[in-house]
């Protein structure tokens, strides 16, 4: 479904991703864990074309987003890029809802403006998604009137409204206190039960073990270990053990 191979990315000469390869199968939930600064967000952002890679290859289904010629990244043309990226949804740490639109418009306008759905159809879908994330009655509110947890649930519904094949999350709960974290994680857990393909960067270790089919551990720009939650917990990777040790404290 999604495959990223030999991704390299530098910021002003500093190597942030060093030959990272990752693939996600249909229906699979992959959690990415690792210390702050290990390159988790950068990897997710590169996959979603929010950052440009230096070299490597990314394909979604059968389509190539970017490939490399002579060690230099070559991207698909602008229109194809847009269409390809639409196969992925992205949920940000800081929600990034559009503050000047109501919750309902945040869910409907992308559908009408980008997918050219009718307003009626868009609203039907939006209302169904809102009740699914437990906010069926907040359609007419503005984002500033919602709690962080509610805003993040709207952001998830907004991403789902475009029917992405893969949903990506970049630390969706790290701006939230424990109570609000729980309500957001419940929504993601339900999506996992429905076999949505998901790629989740998270620091919630317990949650990762519970929902992920596979856990990927990143360390200093490389994937240092990966496997099923059980394999990861048993595995002997030194950095991973140190990371888990720090988490337990």
């Amino acid at each position, binding site marked *: 479904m999604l495959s990223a191979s030999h991704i390299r990315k530098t910021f002003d000469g500093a190597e942030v991703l060093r030959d990272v390869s990752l693939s996600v199968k249909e229906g699979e939930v992959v959690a990415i864990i690792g210390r702050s600064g290990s390159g988790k967000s950068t990897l997710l952002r590169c996959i979603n*074309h929010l950052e440009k890679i230096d070299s490597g290859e990314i394909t979604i289904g059968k389509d190539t987003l970017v490939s490399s010629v002579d060690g230099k990244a070559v991207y698909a043309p602008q229109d194809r890029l847009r269409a390809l*990226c639409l196969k992925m949804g992205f949920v*940000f740490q800081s929600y990034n809802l559009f503050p*000047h639109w109501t919750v309902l418009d945040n869910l409907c306008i992308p559908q009408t403006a980008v997918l050219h759905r009718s307003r009626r159809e868009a609203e039907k879908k939006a209302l169904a998604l809102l009740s699914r994330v437990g906010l069926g009655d907040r359609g007419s509110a503005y984002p*500033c009137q919602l709690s962080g947890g509610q805003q993040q649930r709207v952001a998830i519904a907004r991403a789902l409204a475009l029917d992405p094949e893969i949903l990506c999350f970049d630390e969706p709960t790290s701006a939230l206190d424990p109570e609000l974290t729980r309500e957001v994680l419940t929504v993601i857990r339900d999506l996992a039960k429905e076999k949505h393909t998901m790629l989740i960067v998270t620091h919630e270790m317990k949650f990762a073990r519970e929902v992920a089919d596979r856990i990927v551990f990143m360390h200093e720009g490389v994937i240092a270990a990966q496997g099923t939650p059980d394999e990861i917990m048993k595995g002997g990777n030194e950095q991973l053990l140190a990371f888990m040790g720090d988490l337990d404290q």
Partner: protein
Amino acid sequence: MQYLNDPERLMKLLTQLTHGFGTTLSIFAMTLIISLPLGMIVALGRMSRHKLISAPVSFYILIMRGTPLMLQLFAVYFFLPRLIGPIPRLNAVYIAFGLNYAAYFAEIYRGGIMSIPPGQYEAAQVLGFTRSQTFMRIILPQTVKRVLLPVSNEVITLVKDTSLATAIAVSEMFLTAKNMTSSSGSVEPLFIAGVFYLLMNAVVTAFFNFLTNRFNYYHD
């Protein structure tokens, strides 16, 4: 007291000032009609990634903000006719004021656009909005709210700046009042003109307060 205690002369003064005020209003309105949209084009040019566009636009803004409006008015009035033939005085005022205020509005718009968090662009991108959709539907509407206050400052300044048209003998309200003061030796016409400007700015202020309230339905 030559006017304020003589109803007949006062009426004559008010009639003439009102007549001049019509010209003042048309300078005010035409300047805004030209400069409010032109400022957006200038702002976009200033933010262009192509040096060939952004460099000349920066220079234009530097000249417009860095030299006196009155000097620019003279320049338009005396030099433009050499290029395109004679133009009415009032048109020279519209052009000079329009070009000058566009530069100020451009910098205000630019500040507003740059203050929109990058996350808004990123969210728009991952949702598949095109660049022009992103600008028109997401960035611009939020920018309007953010620039309302600085724009209102400029508009209030413009009300008073219209009196600079006196420099090329356009008979707007200030010149009318000044001439009546010269001929009568009384400062009352100038004083009353001042009251006109004040009232006009009270209306402008009320209008912007209304707009600000209209945009209070959300905050970010």
